């Protein structure tokens, strides 16, 4: 398989802390101490209120498939060799919706069902890990 999937940068100002935490396989997200809004993707301010303080929490790594597609055609040097693969929105139990891949299935076009339960699985890389999901076992 040619090359690697595009990897995030650890020093992007808003999301760097999220990615640095993946080295210990922690799926972190932010919640506002004042208004309880769950913030996703990471950023330094609450989108629910003006002056809340955000705290980091860790997800238990379970969620529900909100929607998905099976990519059959890609011109990307890595992903074109991965087809067919599933991209998905997963509603994580702690209240945020993550864009990810669903893996660990033979045929994504027949085995995935919107609403099915999924669990976090980490794809290991040097210096960080990538959060993917697979059917809950």
């Amino acid at each position: 398989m040619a090359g690697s999937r595009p990897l995030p940068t650890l020093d992007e100002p808003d999301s760097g802390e999220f990615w640095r935490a993946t080295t210990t396989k922690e799926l972190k997200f932010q919640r506002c101490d004042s208004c309880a809004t769950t913030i996703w993707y990471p950023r330094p301010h609450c989108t629910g209120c003006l002056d809340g303080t955000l705290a980091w929490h860790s997800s238990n790594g379970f969620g529900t498939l909100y929607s998905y597609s099976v990519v059959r055609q890609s011109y990307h040097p890595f992903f074109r060799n991965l087809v067919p693969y599933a991209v998905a929105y997963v509603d994580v139990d702690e209240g945020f919706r993550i864009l990810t891949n669903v893996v660990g299935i033979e045929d994504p076009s027949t085995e995935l069902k919107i609403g099915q339960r999924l669990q976090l699985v980490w794809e290991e890389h040097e210096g960080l890990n990538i959060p993917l999901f697979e059917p809950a076992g």
Partner: protein
Amino acid sequence: MSSQKRDAAIVGIYEYPDRDVDGELSPLQIKTVCARNALADAGLSWSDVDGIYDASEGLAMSGLFLAEYWGLAPTVIDTTGVGGSSYEFHVAHALSAIREGRCKVALLTYGSTAHSNRMAIGVGGRGMGGINAADNMESFVGQTLVSNYAMVAHRHMHQYGTTSEQLAEISTATRYHAMRNPDAVRAMEDLEFIDIRETTIDDVVNSRMIADPLHLLECCMISDGGGAVVIASSDVVRNTKKSPVWVIGAGEATKYPTNTGDLTVSAGAQSGPVAFGEAGVTAAEIDVAMIYDSFSITVLTILEDLGFCAKGEGGVWVTGGKLRFDQAGGPALNTDGGGLSSNHPGMRGIFLLIEAARQLRGESMAQVVNAQLAVAHGNGGMLGSRHTAGTIILGAD
């Protein structure tokens, strides 16, 4: 109708006829050809233009550069760039500027050599921009443009029972119109479409799957192209050549991913009511619906959001060919052949305005008899994540 304000009208239009320029023209040259022809269509000249509207596609400080390139001294410069809907935003802003007396003749132009550049718009991967938090959280996934829209289609199917056969109605109606438009037929020939003819529902659902559940014939083409639109104040309109097409309503909106957002609702649910409200008309009164057909699902979602039918009922509602220009029961959809079968160089919004104006002048190749009202609705960005909506309501003179 009498309560509508008629302060500004589309008075000049031009759509570049070629979809494959073989790399022999630049986007800027295409823009210029379109500007000259649209001004000629209006009976105006360069010196009449005092408002420049541009989406800044691939041109740094385009408002400044275009003024110099064309030798103009505009009093209004607007370079709102929000993707393929930018031109609907430009019409909204030109309407305000003309009402306020800040300019009298607004020129909107677009030029693209996406096909010559082999830019992968319809079937490729995400473009690379500067890194921001959203990019940094999403680019590892390998989400293609088609799969982004396909996720909306899957969710629509899940929530409402919508089928691929229903979505295919969008494609077949659009191709039905394209076959009546010689420029669209030539576009499909130049872009090497196979088996160019009116299509059936079976043709669409049996075409190759690109990203489940969207098939090849539900995806827009990647062409070269361009266009221009001239909008003038009501006092200028008296001296233009063609019948004016009045801008009677405008709305703008954004939508982006949230933790509990409904993927089946587009930004059109916000921009549509504003535009229809200003115009004082309802979707049921619309004769011609020019809706950004990047993919079949884009149109189905937006038809619902604009109020042609209730949310979730679009699949059943479009069934039976009612979107064709010669059928009753619904608006004529994308009568030029749309992005699916006529022209999609990346930002199709300007062609929605051009074909809507043709219809209200009586100049379309798939002319709706006595067309009085049209909607042009642009969707910019990506329907399945962050996007913009611009809704423009147009009325015949």
